[in-house]
């Protein structure tokens, strides 16, 4: 029996509101960060207003919301309330971040929301003309990418670590929903990726990029987002070393956070044996030559150049980044585009900043097919050992894992089909629709040309939907929305 305690408990939707308050304060700070760049570019001060207003408002409102849970003991979020919290936080981030764009008067609502969504889902599709865009806004986009990516990794490894059959935790944390304390993880994750970004910036500087471009590209590459400060993307620099640095950063960004922990501890062997590592290497090794061959004689003049272009685009697609070295994709042969679409759909590592179906799931599905065939051919009495190498351990794959992985693949592909259909309803070609939606869904910045300054609002909304669904692995979005709808319906009915 508990007496009435003076420290009341915050639970249920009060708790969600409180957390949203904290999120709002963080978002406000993120929006105010670009103001730092005014030190370097004081001529852009007139734009400061566009950032201060939404930023300060967000911080203030967040602070007020925080009073809901201030000083109270916090209960756990039950059921799918955590999905609601996460989805709401991201929606809030997107909406508030679209305000600076809208306040300039140059962008409409759909466009601003599109850009913000692209930023916080670490995609990189853009409606902005980068040559004419003020630096402060370019910086803001890169900051959105970085924060969106880091936030996402944090959420995936701390809160949603056991959803969707991903099992994003080390063996020690098995079964513990919370895993390591949230704040401690946040610091580690932030430090890790910030470290990568800083190193990337320095390397870019060494190879001749200007400091502003270096910083922005570095943040983008690590976050596997495709916002570039140049219209030609990385191709603008035409420098192979820069491309290599970029590819390394992209690979780091799309490697699972838990694998990073292994690397930091020096367990290279485990990293090599990790299922996803092997899989990516195989894919890259297979597709690069293939595309290279297909490109040669077309847009690429020589074989080495074709391979170089192929390699960069392949890595960019597989890591779901979207930085490019090629002018545009309209001139690419459909064969290569198809391969890129497949890579985009497959995506990066689970628990990383990348999108897509995630390699672990694809590995499980492919291996399941192999195991199934093997079981069919083997004597009935022989039982196979269904395991995959996962985070340095040999992990057994249960039937449930196989089922969930398979189901997810089906759902993902179904939505891919729907999105492609939606785009095609606007009159775009099948190739363009498929490429664009695969990119949106997989949070890759490759555009077939549909998403741009002149895109119709409807097409942009399709893109927004794709990016949002893809980022949160679909289920979380559905669960979150379902809960919200239920709560609203209950409220309306007066319960």
């Amino acid at each position, binding site marked *: 029996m508990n*007496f009435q305690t*003076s*420290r009341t408990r915050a639970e249920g939707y009060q708790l969600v509101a409180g957390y949203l308050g904290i999120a709002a304060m963080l978002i406000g700070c993120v929006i*105010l960060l670009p103001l730092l760049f005014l030190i370097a570019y004081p001529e852009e001060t007139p734009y*400061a207003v566009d950032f*201060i*207003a939404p930023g300060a408002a967000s*911080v203030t409102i967040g602070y007020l919301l925080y009073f809901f849970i201030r000083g109270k003991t916090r209960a756990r979020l039950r059921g799918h309330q955590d999905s609601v919290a996460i989805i709401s936080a991201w929606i809030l981030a997107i909406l508030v971040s679209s305000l600076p764009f809208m306040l300039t008067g140059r962008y409409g609502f759909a466009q601003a929301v599109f850009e913000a969504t692209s930023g916080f889902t670490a995609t990189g599709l853009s409606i902005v003309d980068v040559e004419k865009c003020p630096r402060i806004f370019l910086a803001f986009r890169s900051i959105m990418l970085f924060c969106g990516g880091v936030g996402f990794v944090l959420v995936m490894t701390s809160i949603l670590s056991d959803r969707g059959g991903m099992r994003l935790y080390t063996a020690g944390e098995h079964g513990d929903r919370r895993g390591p304390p949230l704040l401690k993880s946040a610091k580690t994750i932030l430090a890790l990726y910030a470290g990568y970004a800083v190193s990337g910036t320095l390397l870019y500087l060494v190879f001749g990029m200007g400091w502003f471009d270096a910083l922005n590209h570095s943040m983008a590459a690590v976050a596997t987002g495709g916002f570039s400060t140049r219209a030609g993307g990385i191709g603008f620099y035409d420098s192979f070393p820069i491309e290599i640095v970029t590819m390394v950063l992209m690979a780091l960004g799309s490697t699972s956070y838990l694998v990073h922990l292994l690397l930091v501890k020096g367990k290279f062997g485990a990293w090599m044996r990790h299922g996803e590592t092997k899989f990516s290497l195989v894919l890259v090794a297979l597709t690069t030559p293939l595309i290279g061959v297909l490109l040669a004689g077309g847009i690429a003049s020589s074989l080495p150049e074709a391979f170089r272009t192929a390699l960069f685009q392949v890595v960019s697609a597989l890591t779901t980044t979207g930085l490019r070295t090629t002018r545009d994709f309209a001139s690419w042969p459909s064969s290569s585009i198809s391969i890129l679409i497949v890579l985009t759909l497959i995506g990066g590592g689970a628990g990383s900043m990348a999108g897509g179906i995630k390699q672990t799931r694809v590995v499980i599905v492919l291996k399941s097919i192999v195991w199934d065939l093997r079981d069919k051919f083997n004597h009935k009495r022989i039982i196979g050992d269904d395991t995959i190498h996962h985070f340095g351990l040999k992990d057994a794959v249960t039937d449930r894992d196989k089922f969930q992985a398979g189901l997810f693949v089906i759902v993902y592909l179904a939505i891919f089909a729907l999105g492609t259909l939606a785009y095609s309803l606007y009159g775009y070609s099948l190739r363009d629709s498929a490429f664009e939606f695969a990119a949106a869904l997989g949070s890759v910045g490759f555009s077939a040309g549909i998403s741009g300054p002149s895109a119709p609002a409807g097409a942009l909304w399709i893109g927004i939907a794709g990016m949002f669904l893809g980022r949160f692995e679909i289920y979380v979005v559905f669960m979150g929305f379902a809960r919200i709808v239920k709560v609203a319906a209950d409220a309306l009915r007066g319960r």
Partner: protein
Amino acid sequence: MKHTHGLIAMHAAETFGILLLSTLVAFLIRSLNLRVENILIIYVLSILVIVIETKSYGWGVVASLFCTFAFNYFFTEPFRTFVINDPSYFVSLGIFLIAAFIVSTLTSRLQSQIAISARNEEMTDKLYKVSNGYLNILERDEIIAYGERSVTTLLGKPCRIFYGEASAMADPEAAACYRNGLASLRDERLPPGLKKRFVPIVNKNVITGVLRIDCSAGDVAKDEWLYLETILSQFVLAMEREELRQAEELHRINMEKERLKNNLLRSISHDLRTPLTAIAGGSEFLLERVDNIDGETMKSLLTDIHSDAVWLGTMVENLLNMARIQEGKLLIKKQGEVLDDIIGEALSRVAKNLGEHRLSCAPSDGIFLVPMDGQLIIQVLINLLNNAIEHTRPDCRIAVRADRRQGYVDLSVSDDGGGIEAEMMDHLFESFGSSGKKASESRKGAGLGLSICKAIILAHGGSIVGGNNAEGGATFSFSLPIEEEESHG
């Protein structure tokens, strides 16, 4: 509040961040061409927030100064300069400082209220748990142990309870407290160097015990005294309850004893009356017919009178022994007796009761002395033999044997009669344990025999057992130590 470097750094960061934000908003307001007074309001707000977050007036002062300067520098003409002799400057500074002061005072009061409230809650909860615990505890020692635990949990200091005079006197310091009622009372400070506090445990103005608290980690806090006294009174109540319970238990036992005694008297008088009636009747008959009765009849009557008298004698002997045993005053005078003589004496005394039973006696190997109280051991043998005679068929064999082994001599009485019934086995040596079926035959000594045997044998330092044997009858055997030991009272 602990002022660690980390805390100061954090507060500095918070203050700086909030001031930066409000300055930015101030710029925003100016660029939107709103009235400049709004900026002052924004600054007041930020000072309030800073004081709330840092919970310290100091940072509020810092913030007030900053806001005043910033406002002067950025937002009043001429811009970007300090103009110090403007009186409104002092007014705003004054207002900022007052606002900061009010908020910080309120906040700190609120904080301490919350802290007090939380503490009260915690204590109340502990008290509740403690009193709940007492409901389920019996036994004096357990209550004392629980009391110690509860005080220890409450205060966080190790404690010891000395309950009762004996316990309190055993510890010299506690004894002082117990005797004088002198204790470091709640208003007295503990003299330096003294690490322990002694608190008297009082019930109805009588000191019943002493509580010792180990104060080496710190004295009992002022607000803890009330809780301590509450717990002590709970303890006292629990002990009192226990004492009353035990007194009641004792009462009950005494009443039970009374009842048993009355039962005993009743059955004894019944048993005494029967042989006495026979003796009176027989002797009266003889007196009347002394002149013309024939020798055979006279002999038979006299024999009956004799055996009844002997029987009575045995019975009274048993009763006396039982009374002595119950009062704890059974004295045995051990001296070395010849075992064969003892056995022989017992046999001769029961000879007349034998009837058709066949008695055999296995001779012991050699003559040896055994230290014992002869009369009592004879009594034991007589009781065992009488039991064998009465509880078996009339023509059964009864065997007596004596064996010697290392340090002990074993005697046994066996028969091949019916044996002991299963339900009697556990109650053989209890008082009044005779088999219920033969209650009508009142020549049983009211079932005292075996319990007396047991008491006598135990008093000798030996042991006695009874059970069924292979011949289908019962065997009772007892052993006596041969070495001299201290005599048992």
